[in-house]
């Protein structure tokens, strides 16, 4: 077993005083290897507490740089860090907090090709990613490579958390079987209370320590929800699905895979956007091809005049063929599906496609209040 030196005994004295942790538990934490996926709202507080708690090897994975809009909730960073790679600054900050631990920075985007190698150095994964595709990739990889997983997600004032451990309960796919990319807006579009990920990230750090030490009752087979506005927690029992695609009796996913139509963060970042008022102006003046990527039933409920309905799933499966002369504008309900469609269109050679920023919800809010969406 890993031993603790005098400085560590002083640093972790409040842990050592807890019978549930003590020297044995603290030594176990020192020997633990934990990866935090996403140095964002959730990853920052989770990493701070895990570093402070003395997790011996702490990895951080994120390919982004610090943006000014991150500072409202991503508490590893300060104003001086804007523009710098997140994992580098996070590592510096965590080293100041606890120089006794080993910190590993992974400045890469997680994908099917690298997840196996990266996860092989860790025993437990903390998922704080902000992309649906990454969330499923992390879950699948944890099931396939038999890693424990502490997962959380946030939206506006609401958060969810659950844990997974091999052979000890359902996985994230048992709860939500398939990715529904684009149906749920992310924090960039919908906003998020800055302190919300602090609560959920601290819960993730708590769960991580419990799972590593084998103490308490972790969130295995339980989904915890938190509503900051009502300050209420709810708990839901989740059963394992025999037909789960990854942890079920006859899994169809046996190795990590990128989802259909996978777009990198960089591809999505390169997408040019048009605001609802700008589109309203352009509609009267220019020749535009309007592509509405929502489902047919959503399209039937209300759409812009002249818009063509090409659901995102169809674009992902069949690709995209469009006349290149007219400016093409992609739209959906909130802007997530159209962002992906736009990135795929660029990849398919459509010249400078545009995405309606904030989707048709923004159109309704800023241009046409009577629009049905």
């Amino acid at each position, binding site marked *: 077993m890993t031993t603790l030196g005098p400085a560590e005994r002083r640093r972790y004295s409040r842990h050592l005083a807890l019978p549930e942790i003590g020297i044995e538990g603290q030594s176990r934490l020192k020997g633990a290897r934990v990866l935090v996926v*996403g140095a*964002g*709202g*959730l*990853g920052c507080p989770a990493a701070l507490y895990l570093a402070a708690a003395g997790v011996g090897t702490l990895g951080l994975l994120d390919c982004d740089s610090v943006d000014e809009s991150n500072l409202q909730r991503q508490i590893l960073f300060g104003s001086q860090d804007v523009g710098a790679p997140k994992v580098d600054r996070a590592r510096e900050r965590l080293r100041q907090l606890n120089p006794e631990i080993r910190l590993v920075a992974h400045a890469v985007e997680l994908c099917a090709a690298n997840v196996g190698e990266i996860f092989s150095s860790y025993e437990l994964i903390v*998922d*704080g*990613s*902000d*992309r*649906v595709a990454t*969330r499923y990739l992390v879950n699948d990889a944890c099931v396939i490579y038999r890693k424990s997983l502490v997962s*959380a*997600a*946030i*939206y*506006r*004032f*609401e*958060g*969810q958390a659950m844990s997974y451990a091999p052979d000890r309960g359902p996985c994230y796919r048992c*709860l*939500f*079987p*398939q*990715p*529904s990319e684009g*149906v*749920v*807006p*992310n*924090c960039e579009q*919908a906003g*998020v209370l800055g302190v919300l*990920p602090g609560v959920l990230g601290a819960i993730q750090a708590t769960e991580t320590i419990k799972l590593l030490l084998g103490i308490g009752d972790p969130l295995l087979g339980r*989904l915890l*929800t938190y*509503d900051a*506005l*009502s300050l209420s927690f*709810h708990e*839901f*029992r*989740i*059963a394992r699905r025999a037909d789960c695609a990854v942890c079920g009796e006859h899994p169809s996913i046996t190795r990590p895979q990128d989802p259909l139509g996978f777009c990198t963060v960089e591809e999505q970042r390169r997408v040019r956007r048009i605001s609802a008022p700008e589109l309203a102006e352009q509609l009267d003046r220019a020749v535009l091809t309007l592509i509405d990527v929502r489902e047919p*039933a*959503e399209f039937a*409920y209300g759409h812009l005049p002249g818009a063509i309905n090409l659901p995102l799933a169809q674009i992902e499966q069949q690709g995209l063929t469009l006349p290149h002369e007219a400016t093409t504008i992609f739209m959906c309900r909130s802007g997530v599906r159209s962002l992906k469609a736009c990135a795929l269109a660029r990849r398919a050679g459509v010249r400078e496609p545009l995405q309606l920023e904030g989707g048709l*919800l923004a159109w309704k809010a800023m241009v046409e209040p009577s629009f*049905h969406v």
Partner: protein
Amino acid sequence: MSSVHIASPLRDYTRGAATVAAEGSTVAELLADLERRYPGMRFRMIDEQQRIRPHIRIFVATREIRDLQQPVAPQEPVHLLCALSGG
């Protein structure tokens, strides 16, 4: 009448309300009542094949619902959960 807790991403339909009232002796009836009160909401949860969408979970009290014909007792709370993606 049941008290229905609405996941944040669905609150655009309920004009921001986190909890609304709806009637029905089965989950299907309750969802139909919600649709009458908040048009468009049901489609966000149930697809054309009458299946619960994979990013939506419905709980009646603490029971997870996978069959829309399952009963809802009067006064039982219903929770409509939605997968969240923010981090």
